[in-house]
């Protein structure tokens, strides 16, 4: 019983992290058709900001969390401004290559200005304790992660349904030009998308830092790659799809680890991707593929 609960929590917390990052990718993709592979470096930037602010200004973990969120939002909006705005009208491949370029440049900057070795930043580790709930021992971090993701999704839903900018983002996913014809500035809508995406990256960064306790230049790349797969499973550009894909991937990953005999542990990734391939045979566009027509990129 406790084993089952532990594994379910495992799956939820893995899924939560993927879902947060996948949502960040999906929001940007849905309105401007850009697969933002530099999203991982936004997460890493959050980690480095934590090191800097943590050494120079405050060791208070809650202020630091605020700083991480703020740093991720700012750098995400800044990347749009300096890198992606210029290729906004270009085709998908150009955008993709630009994102890869930005990703590589940032990783190298972190390497040059930081260090190729992990830099410790342990202020969030306190989130990860073993706690006993009744007869079950679980990790507190996993509970926080699942709850925080649920709350973030709740806020996102509220934002997308109840605010004009949120409505505009949903509308822009379908017909960006029509949104502009309604009098909303394209730059404002896109900047908002990057800000929201950065905020979600910041949240993911806090949990990644709580688990790792150190930063590395390429620490964001693998999670973003996995989140990308989650997006593909769910249907690229669909926000519910990103959440579903994230949690599904978390569940499959844990199930494979649990069900596969120990000696096959190394095959876990391979089995996960084989299952992903099967899903795509069944639904080539992902499970919740969004409407066919994609918005113009303005």
């Amino acid at each position, binding site marked *: 019983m406790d084993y089952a609960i532990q594994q379910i929590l495992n799956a939820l917390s893995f899924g939560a992290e993927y879902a947060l990052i996948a949502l960040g990718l999906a929001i940007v993709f849905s309105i401007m058709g850009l697969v933002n592979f530099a999203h991982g470096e936004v997460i890493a930037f959050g980690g480095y900001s934590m090191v800097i602010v943590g050494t120079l200004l405050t060791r208070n973990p809650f202020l630091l969390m605020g700083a991480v969120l703020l740093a991720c939002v700012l750098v995400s909006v800044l990347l749009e401004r300096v890198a992606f705005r210029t290729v906004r009208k270009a085709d998908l491949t150009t955008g993709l290559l630009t994102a890869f370029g930005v990703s590589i440049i940032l990783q190298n900057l972190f390497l040059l200005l930081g260090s190729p070795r992990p830099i410790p930043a342990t202020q969030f580790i306190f989130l990860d304790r073993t706690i006993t709930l009744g007869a079950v021992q679980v990790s507190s971090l996993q509970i926080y992660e699942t709850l925080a993701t649920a709350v973030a999704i709740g806020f996102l839903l509220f934002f997308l349904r109840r605010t004009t900018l949120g*409505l505009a983002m949903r509308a822009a996913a379908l017909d960006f030009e029509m949104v502009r014809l309604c009098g909303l500035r394209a730059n404002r809508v896109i900047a908002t998308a990057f800000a929201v995406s950065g905020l979600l990256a910041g949240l993911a960064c806090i949990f990644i830092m709580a688990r790792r306790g150190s930063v590395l230049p390429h620490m964001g790349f693998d999670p973003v790659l996995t989140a990308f797969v989650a997006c593909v499973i769910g249907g690229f550009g669909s926000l519910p799809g990103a959440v579903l894909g994230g949690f599904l991937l978390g569940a499959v990953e844990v199930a494979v680890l649990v069900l596969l005999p120990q000696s096959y542990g190394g095959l876990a990734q391979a089995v996960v991707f084989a299952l992903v391939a099967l899903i795509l045979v069944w639904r080539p566009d992902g499970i919740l593929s969004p409407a066919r027509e994609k918005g113009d990129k303005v």
Partner: protein
Amino acid sequence: MLEIQDLKVTHGPIEAVHGIALTVAEGACVTLLGPNGAGKTSTLSAITGTARSTGLIRLAGTDISRLPVEARAKRGIAISPEGRRIFSNLTVRENLVMGAAGRRDKSAIGSDIRGWFEQFPILGERRDQPAGTLSGGEQQMLAIARALMSRPRILLLDEPSLGLAPQITARIFDIIGDLKRQGITILLVEQNATAAIELSDYVYVLNNGLISSEGPAERYGDGSALMDQITGVHG
């Protein structure tokens, strides 16, 4: 209200409109007629700023031809575009909220929406339904209401009767007549010459990107001669 001079509209290397002049007086309903490919939509796109153009476009006395799309919308240009382009993934109500997105007086938006639901009860009944589930006629009403949610200086209508059954078309033209009586300035693009001429004050006929004929609506009678010309039916 709207004054256009020497307007040329291009889509990349193609010039669709080759220099036209057109005026819409305040409170008037002006119709732009013409066959498929004449350049009607291109003309409207130049006014809204979604197509490249040269020439003068003056709205209420100021030249707007260099402003970006959203700034023109804020200054009072609203469109019910060709194909309606409602936001099918948003609810009916949310579509109307989007229509008012560029407006400053946010407080009056709620009462405006209620006003439209009174005017079009069918939209009120379906207010929380995804707009994509509406019928063609209902979508056209929604597109018009969404455009008017910005309280524009001028309403551009691009073939509002396209693809609708005759009774629904009649209903849409009734609505446009009502709007005109409410004092709304309208530039109507149509292929249905008979119905459009009946409710307009002035008519322009566009052919191959040039205005081939213009004059007060009365001059075109019931429009059947024009209708033949536009649809290519002779006799």
